[in-house]
């Protein structure tokens, strides 16, 4: 150690400051990676365990395989089935492409949030005034993202390996690790895509949109390749196709990892290169800072809220529509497979259902849609709070605008958005089912779509209540309600949980429409609860200080 290096107490030695961006990014990426690893793990574990316990006999499994093996539409949506009469094969088929897409969305959002998002917020500039270059900083941030990716993989791998030890599942540790790696490789590619689009455009929102478009193209290419139209070679044009080719657990091809690694490294390298060629805060693509004024909506707080929320709401609408369409297309085959299983029949009859297999499948699918619709509600509460915490609400509240009328306008918008999203899911599912000539009634599906609204309105009301009485906890509490409820539903479905515990979930009182008729009494109770929360919250909000972060 050189003797001239004097460490002054409270002053960080120069060598350490160079990794501050990497450590900062890593901290946030790892937190998110662990959380999503947990989601991945729950999905994989529940798929494997449910299959093992539902389809017990070889005959049931063969019948399932025969049904799906010949369905081109299902292959196009979630990838071709390999050995799905086995637990391993079914788990891969059910999880791999789905989780690759979820991981890709996570990667794109995390990459753009921690690169362009930080830069847009001005925090990047602060760091760059320290001892690092723009390229160095970007490389550090990428290293931080890498740590998040490792966390995602580690949690997924750990749980898969543990579940694999179960005698009914029986997946070895080595294959489990490789399977987990395959499911998270979509995340790796799209973390790098997010890092690259962060260099190209000036806002986080645009960067996410570009990354989302890249994902859409990848998915579409893979979909065409798997549609059985003799275009299988197209699989090699899409990162999602490479992930399919990995075929973990069934007939592993680790060599398909090569293009994944090369593309990820290439995109990351390009991002670092471009970061050095532009100014901080600027973009590689020419920015269009000016725009023609569009003032049609800007006549008051409610119009402003609509204008600001429009891109997000359209995004949610598209996501829910895609999901609805997918459920509709799969409903017929999936329903037939469900009917073939006596234990599933029992579950449906316990729920009070007597509908067809397709209806039963859609009933389950709409429970997932309900979670997405609740996210729309939570997002609106979060947006209202961010107007306040960002100080932008001051500009409205210092003018002749009543507190309750501002919040009421936002509540109205959120309610409209929630109802519209539920209906979009219903119509999309109906169109999907129609394409497969399924016997699904339109009215029943509209009921199923509207049935997703009450839990979301309950979340909305709880969010407004917290916004009124404890503003700084708003975002955490609102998303917390959804996360808790979802957890209770997953855990409660596999163990005999106490009904008091189950009742704390906003989704628990929801009937699985269209499999069974919507329970409008419970739905009414959820809406009333939400309305009460919203009323108390609005009252409290009107009588408190506006507070920042």
């Amino acid at each position, binding site marked *: 150690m050189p003797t001239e290096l004097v460490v002054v107490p409270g002053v960080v030695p120069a060598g350490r400051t160079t990794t501050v961006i990497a450590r900062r990014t890593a901290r946030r990426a790892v937190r998110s990676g662990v959380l999503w690893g947990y989601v991945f793990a729950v999905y994989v574990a529940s798929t494997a365990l449910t299959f093992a316990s539902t389809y017990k006999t070889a005959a049931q499994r063969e019948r399932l395989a025969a049904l799906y093996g010949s369905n081109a539409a299902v292959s196009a949506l979630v990838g071709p089935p390999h050995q799905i009469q086995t637990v391993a094969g079914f788990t891969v088929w059910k999880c791999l492409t789905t989780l690759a897409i979820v991981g890709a969305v996570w990667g794109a959002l995390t990459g753009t949030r921690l690169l362009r998002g930080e830069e*847009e917020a001005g925090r990047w500039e602060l760091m760059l005034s320290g001892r690092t270059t723009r390229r160095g900083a970007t490389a550090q941030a990428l290293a931080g993202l890498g740590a998040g990716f490792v966390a995602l993989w580690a949690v997924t791998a750990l749980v898969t390996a543990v579940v694999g030890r179960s005698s009914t599942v029986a997946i070895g540790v080595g294959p489990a690790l490789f399977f987990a790696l395959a499911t998270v490789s979509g995340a790796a590619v799209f973390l790098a895509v997010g890092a690259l689009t962060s260099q190209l455009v*000036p*806002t986080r929102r645009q960067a996410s949109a570009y990354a989302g478009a890249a994902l859409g193209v990848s998915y579409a290419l893979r979909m065409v390749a798997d549609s059985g139209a003799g275009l299988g070679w197209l699989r090699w044009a899409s990162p999602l196709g490479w992930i399919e080719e990995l075929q973990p657990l069934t007939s592993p091809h680790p060599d398909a990892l090569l293009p994944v690694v090369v593309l990820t490294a290439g995109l990351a390298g390009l991002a670092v290169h471009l970061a050095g060629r532009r100014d901080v805060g600027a973009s590689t693509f020419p*920015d269009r*800072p*000016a*725009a*023609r*004024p*569009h*003032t049609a909506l*800007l*006549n*008051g*707080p409610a119009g*402003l809220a609509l*204008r*600001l929320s429009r891109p997000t709401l359209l995004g949610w609408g598209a996501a829910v529509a895609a999901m609805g369409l997918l459920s509709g297309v799969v409903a017929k085959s999936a329903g037939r497979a469900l009917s073939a299983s006596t234990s599933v029949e029992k579950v449906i009859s316990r729920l009070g259902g007597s509908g067809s297999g397709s209806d039963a499948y859609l009933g389950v699918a709409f429970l997932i849609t309900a979670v997405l619709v609740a996210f729309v509600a939570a997002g609106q509460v979060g947006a209202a709070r961010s107007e306040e915490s*960002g*100080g*932008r609400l*001051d*500009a*409205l*509240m*210092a*003018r*002749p*605008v*009543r507190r309750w009328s501002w919040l009421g306008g936002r509540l109205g918008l959120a309610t409209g958005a929630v109802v519209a999203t539920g209906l979009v899911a219903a119509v999309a599912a109906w169109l999907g089912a129609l394409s497969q000539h399924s016997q699904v009634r339109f009215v029943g599906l509209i009921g199923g779509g509207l049935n997703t609204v009450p839990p979301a309105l309950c979340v909305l009301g709880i969010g407004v209540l917290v916004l009124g009485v404890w503003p700084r906890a708003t975002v955490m509490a609102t998303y917390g309600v959804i996360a808790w409820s979802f957890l209770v539903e997953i855990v409660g479905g596999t163990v005999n949980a106490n009904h008091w515990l189950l009742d704390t979930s906003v989704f628990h009182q929801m009937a699985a429409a269209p499999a069974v008729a919507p329970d409008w009494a419970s739905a009414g109770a959820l809406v009333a609860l939400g309305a009460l929360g919203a009323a108390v919250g609005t009252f409290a909000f009107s*009588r*408190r*200080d*506006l507070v920042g972060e």
Partner: protein
Amino acid sequence: MGVAAIRTEGLSKRYGSVDALKDLDLEVVESEVLGYLGPNGAGKTTTIRLLLGLARPSAGRAEIFGLDCQRESVAAHGRLAYVPGEANLWPSLTGTETLHLLGRVQGQVDAAYREELVTRFDLDTSKKVRTYSKGNRQKLILIAALMTRADLLLLDEPTSGLDPLMEQAFRHSVHEAKGRGQTIFLSSHILSEVEALCDRVGILRDGRLVDLGTLTQMRHLSALTVEATFDGTVPDLARVPGVTSVTVEGRVVRCQVRGSVEPLLKVLAASGVHELLSREPSLEELFLAHYGAGDPTDGAPVRAD
């Protein structure tokens, strides 16, 4: 006498155990320009947020044109315009869109004056707010307030981030508003700004109003800090008329002068002064000189920069 533009009675605000504002009794008459001076954290912004009803008082009450700031805030807001020290606006809207929105929400806009202000402040309103510098965002929110021609302007350190040229444009606009009989409440920590614009000055320190009066009454505040470096022996400046707070460091003498500088200049000229520096004292220095040393809110010594 008509209704006061602003009237507060025992207005107080506590945050936890800290008194951000304590027992403020203040009256601002119509068409008056009141300067509201104090160092950072003295309670200026708290006062304005209470007047706007953005925060609720812990005790006391406030009125704007006879309208209660909490219960009748919407009616009160119809007669005032507010400029915050930090312009938080919607990044995705352009300047034009922002002005349109804020004008519609306010419900009253002098469109011709708005165009004049945009030209005066030299602002390109076709750009999105996210591309604006801090100064440009401040211009935008200033224009949004001034274009309403409201009866009362509540300005909270409105010139932060403006360059000197734009500060001139701001002063011009305030004079214009004053000429039209608008009442102005100008919070600031810049003494010269308040001196140039205000009829009366209130001084706030640690949440309390410690002084309130006309500029002539506050003349004792306008001192000059002089720093002189001598070639040879340092003369005794303490006896020179108008000179106070003399400190000596080697051959450098620092002092404050009130009233005419002539007696001091005579002494300096006779003593072989090598270098002479004079400037307006910072508000902190004045506070140190007039309202006692130290800042009890954080216990740190007051900086004299």
